[in-house]
């Protein structure tokens, strides 16, 4: 994955962790701190990343203050839930696949399966 993607992730992590909205300069300082990426970045770079994220609706820009402040559009857990929904298809019967599966095999097959699953 490209470094721009990684930078987007660092910015989002900071916004998700922050209780209040942050300006590009707050983010610049936070990113430069050793506990974050420790990277010294130009403010324009951060503004570019922020506008990309805004376009994709990950961040909301507060325009009534100068400099503009940014906050995460929704909490991280919500995005994670969306992602899991996409990956798992939202089907809650997924975990039951194996139980239904066990009910469908004959004794002979069950023995074969046990042998395969116990093998190397």
């Amino acid at each position, binding site marked *: 994955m490209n470094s721009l993607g990684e930078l987007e*992730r660092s910015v989002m992590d900071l916004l998700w962790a922050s209780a209040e909205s942050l300006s590009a300069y707050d983010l610049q300082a936070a990113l430069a701190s050793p506990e974050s990426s420790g990277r010294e970045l130009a403010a324009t770079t951060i503004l570019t990343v922020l506008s990309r994220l805004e376009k994709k609706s990950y961040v909301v820009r507060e325009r009534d203050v100068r400099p503009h402040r940014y906050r995460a559009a929704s909490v991280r857990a919500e995005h*994670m839930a969306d*992602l899991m929904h*996409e990956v798992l298809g939202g089907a809650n019967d997924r975990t039951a696949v194996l139980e239904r599966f066990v009910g469908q*095999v004959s004794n002979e097959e069950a023995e074969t399966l046990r042998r*395969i699953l116990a*093998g190397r």
Partner: protein
Amino acid sequence: MVAAAITLGVIAILLAWPVPVILPGARWAYRRPALGLLVWQLVALIGGFSMIGSLVLLGAATFATDLPDAATGMWRFVTHNELPEGSSVWSLLALSGALFLTAHLLLNLLVTVVYAERERARHSQLITLLSEPIAGRPGTRLIDTPAPVAYCLPGALTSITVLSAGLLQLLDEEELQAVIEHERAHVRLRHDIVLIFFTAWKLSLPWLPTARNASREVALLLEMHADDNALVHVGRGSLARAITIVSEGGALPQRSELSSAMPESTPKELRARLLRLA
């Protein structure tokens, strides 16, 4: 011409109905999934061409005796707006049918590809923000979620294999290797491209058994094909346990019908994948 049209028509019907009804579950295909995949691709390709071809030949039969003759007649119709001698309403109907079917198939393919690519880009963006690279395993990323999840996101330039923290907890080293090699095989063998053609095929002709059965069975054969590639690197037991654990959480992304994602596996399909390892 008429005889050729009928022959192609019969081939089209055979490939659209009895063949794709009989073919799923064939043992020889499960033993050699690459061969099975080849056969399914031929069934779809020849089926599609013979459907269109029989309509073209049928339409041209009234005014032409051979193919060059038919091509000349149709070309004059397009350029000079002149109906070939002997052509009837039926020939026009058959030829328009062929044209419509061709356009319909190509358009559906285009829509499927565009939609899948947009979904993939959006999902990839979400993954970038929510996961971190796994040190020492290039091309893999870790999402911090308890569900046991492993899937691959094929891309034009970079492909990502996504693993979840929950999965890493459940798998030992060799089982993890099995999952990674399985996903890597999907990516390396461009299984996403095979699948997208069958997804488009199903979308175009949803009422045909060939399209419905084909996309399901092809998805299963792709899993088996990837399993075989993982077996080169890991033992059968490890692979079988990995398959079982991953299928509890979700093997590959299941998104909308249109995307190139592999469909969710049913217990029957899971059993088929495990028993062939015996």
